[in-house]
């Protein structure tokens, strides 16, 4: 057929591409054409051919093959109306009606959207995850029907557990009679969003374009109301591709998105908390997923300084400056041990905050008897039951305020200020000085600890982190990877005081998050001219190495440092624990965990996809110069990767 295009003038290229799936429809429409083609080939119906007869003239059927309005364009306008700037997708032919509209309409008319090519749906969602934590709003992603959504599911779960807004679109196929054949059936389901419903905040399968507009606006509103979360629209493939029913005159209106006021605590309970904090001798402020925006960071500083109270950061957001004198992250357990009031703001693991459990399962409270423990958290305002990301029930809390912490802080600060007398305020200053000394002491201890193994190879974590810090510290940097695998050395040694300088962790500890989420964060940072850096693991990188292609292809500047311990190291430690309990030793556990034999050359892998790559760096003396070269590349707008052969933790 491709060799004889003259024979198929009535069939558009697009229909040809979809021909296999359209099956019966195309077969019926093209029947005369096929009969003609087969007759001329002499391969079919040879026994009925009459050499003297003339084939009847072909009369094309009267069909509308083009149109000037389409559902996809309307959907694009809805997305733009919501302020969505980016659409990340691995292409799939069940959402091409929308994808084509974004490419040929959304990307060339104002306000312009940008479509980004990913090589895996999990990467699309994780990019949205990282983007939202920098930008404070969702970007969109498209996922192929059923199989694309299945690919994406772990990343969706991470985002759900991390309370992050993501705007996701997958396909639906509402009319089975227009579904075509083969893969169109494989890639549709009666209720495909059901597979992720337990870990999305909301989903909808709209039945009309007008319904799409309303559902999209509602979805965005839900995503952006604390607790934030991913939302999903399953959009009928035909609705995307067809012209707008009734033409442009019947185009549905674009619904308006209202300003969203998040749920704050009621006044009486705010007054009660303020009373407790002002009169406490040993208050502790704990913040985890609190600072949704830079305002959260600013307000927590104000509350802590007003009270001269210590702040311990759970590490899932940039809640408090790392070198603020009241930052007592290293002293959490000892502070809890003498606390009379604990105020926990959006704690991700409230049970573990107020309870200690040993390996034999014995429990004991972390706070002294008679203390008051208060949580302010929106995470329980939209509970679901199947997955356990909420962690164990924390029965030790005295008061649970079901509200958004960031939205509650301004009223709490005002109440605290009203209740603070001059004499009380003066007394609190001494407390602040004590914490300032403790903070400096912890910093000195961390430096001493960092000096051990400083010249070791594989390279130690503090050495790797400090080499990185001194390579970027004069840039407007943004560290967009979690630090647990580096034992939190950046928090121990670096100075960070801006909201975008740290964005926390995976949410549900799902590996394969760091590399793509970092790229999404870099995308958000790109328009502000920030320098994005990510410490990714060798294990994490290999879950989605295609992200490096996206970084190069989309010209997104980012510096990846590969913490290459050649192992799934956390699992190695845990396997060792189990093997030793069984008295079998650990010599064989590496079979399950070591990423060796062969050692992967991550720099070569990066270079193969257009990313500047160096490594493996084995000698710590080589790391600083390599970083300097990579930083120069990133400042030119390129992605770069340094492979650092490093210690496990």
């Amino acid at each position, binding site marked *: 057929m491709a060799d004889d295009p003259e024979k198929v003038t009535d069939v558009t290229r697009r229909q040809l591409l979809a021909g296999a799936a359209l099956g019966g429809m195309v077969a019926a429409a093209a029947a005369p054409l096929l009969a003609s083609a087969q007759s001329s080939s002499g391969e079919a119906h040879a026994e009925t051919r009459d050499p003297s007869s003339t084939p009847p003239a072909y009369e094309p059927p009267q069909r509308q093959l083009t149109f000037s309005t389409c559902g996809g364009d309307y959907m694009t306008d809805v997305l733009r109306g919501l302020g969505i700037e980016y659409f990340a997708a691995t292409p799939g032919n069940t959402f091409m009606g929308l994808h084509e509209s974004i490419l040929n309409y959304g990307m060339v008319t104002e306000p312009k959207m940008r479509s980004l090519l990913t090589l895996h749906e999990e990467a699309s969602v994780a990019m949205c995850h990282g983007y939202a934590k920098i930008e404070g709003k969702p970007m969109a992603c498209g996922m192929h029907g059923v199989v694309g959504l299945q690919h994406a599911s772990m990343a969706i779960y991470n985002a759900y557990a991390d309370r992050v807004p993501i705007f996701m679109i997958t396909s639906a196929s509402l009319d089975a009679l227009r579904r075509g054949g083969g893969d169109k059936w494989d890639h549709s389901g009666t209720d495909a969003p059901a597979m992720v419903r337990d870990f999305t905040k909301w989903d909808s399968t709209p039945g009309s374009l007008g319904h799409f507009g309303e559902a999209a606006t509602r979805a965005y509103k839900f995503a952006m109301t604390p607790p934030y979360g991913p939302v999903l629209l399953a959009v009928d493939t035909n609705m995307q591709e067809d012209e707008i029913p009734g033409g442009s005159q019947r185009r549905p209106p674009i619904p308006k998105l209202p300003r969203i006021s998040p749920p704050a605590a009621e006044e009486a309970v705010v007054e009660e908390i303020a009373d407790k904090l002002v009169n406490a001798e040993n208050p502790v402020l704990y913040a985890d997923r609190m600072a949704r925006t830079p305002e959260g960071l600013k307000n927590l500083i104000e509350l802590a300084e007003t009270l001269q109270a210590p702040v311990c950061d759970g590490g899932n957001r940039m809640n408090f400056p790392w070198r603020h004198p009241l930052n007592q992250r290293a002293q959490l357990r000892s502070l809890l041990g003498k606390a009379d009031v604990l105020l926990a703001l959006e704690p991700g693991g409230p049970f573990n905050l107020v309870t200690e459990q040993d*390996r034999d399962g014995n429990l004991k409270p972390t706070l002294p008897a008679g203390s008051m423990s208060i949580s302010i958290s929106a995470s329980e305002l939209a509970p679901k039951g199947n997955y356990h990301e909420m962690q164990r029930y924390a029965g030790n809390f005295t008061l649970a305020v079901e509200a958004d912490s960031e939205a509650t802080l301004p009223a709490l600060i005002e109440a605290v200020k009203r209740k603070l007398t001059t004499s009380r305020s003066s007394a609190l200053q001494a407390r602040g000085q004590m914490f300032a000394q403790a903070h400096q002491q912890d*910093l000195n201890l961390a430096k001493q600890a960092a000096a*051990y*193994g400083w010249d070791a190879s594989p390279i130690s974590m503090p050495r790797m982190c400090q080499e990185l810090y001194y390579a970027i510290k004069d840039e407007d940097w943004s560290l967009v990877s979690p630090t647990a695998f580096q034992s939190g050395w950046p928090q121990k040694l670096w100075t960070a005081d801006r909201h975008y300088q740290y964005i926390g962790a995976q949410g549900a500890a799902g590996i394969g998050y760091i590399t793509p989420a970092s790229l999404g964060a870099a995308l958000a940072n790109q328009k502000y001219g920030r320098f994005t850096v990510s410490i990714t693991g060798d294990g994490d990188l290999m879950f989605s190495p295609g992200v490096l292609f996206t970084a190069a292809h989309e010209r997104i500047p980012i510096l990846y440092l590969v913490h290459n311990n050649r192992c799934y190291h956390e699992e190695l430690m845990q396997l060792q624990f189990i093997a030793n309990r069984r008295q079998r030793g650990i010599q064989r556990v590496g079979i399950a965990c070591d990423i060796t034999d062969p050692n992967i050359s991550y720099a070569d892998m990066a270079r193969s996809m257009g990313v500047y790559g160096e490594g493996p760096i084995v000698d710590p003396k080589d790391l600083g110069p390599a970083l300097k070269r990579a930083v120069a590349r990133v400042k030119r707008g390129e992605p770069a990767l340094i492979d650092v052969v490093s210690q496990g933790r």
Partner: protein
Amino acid sequence: MRRLIYWVASLCVVGAGAAAIVRAPASAQNAAPSGNAMHGKQLFALDGCYECHGYQGEGGGGDGPKLAPDPLPYAFVLHQLRSPLRAMPVYTSEVLSDHDIADIYAYLSSLPKAKAVADIPLLRCDPGSCSNVK
């Protein structure tokens, strides 16, 4: 250092409490036996000590405390291996003999002292206050 002190203190307290349950090996009562540091270095990697404590026993952040230089007294180390506190795997004599532990202890004891912070430019200054330290 604070962590080290806490760890030693914990060992002392729990060690006393656990005496009735876990009998400390006879060698724990004595000073460190002589050992082969080179073999100990190999065992430190083969038996997975490096995973949490780093290849030079420098410590692995929250996963394992610093072991070297200046390791804790041999009796404490032996007791911690045979009856560990916190999240450390248990090393019975089936997995690691007293002789091997002596070799590992010899390796830890052989490690040189760390550089002084003042001699490491990247650690010398307070973060944020140093520029062009190299």
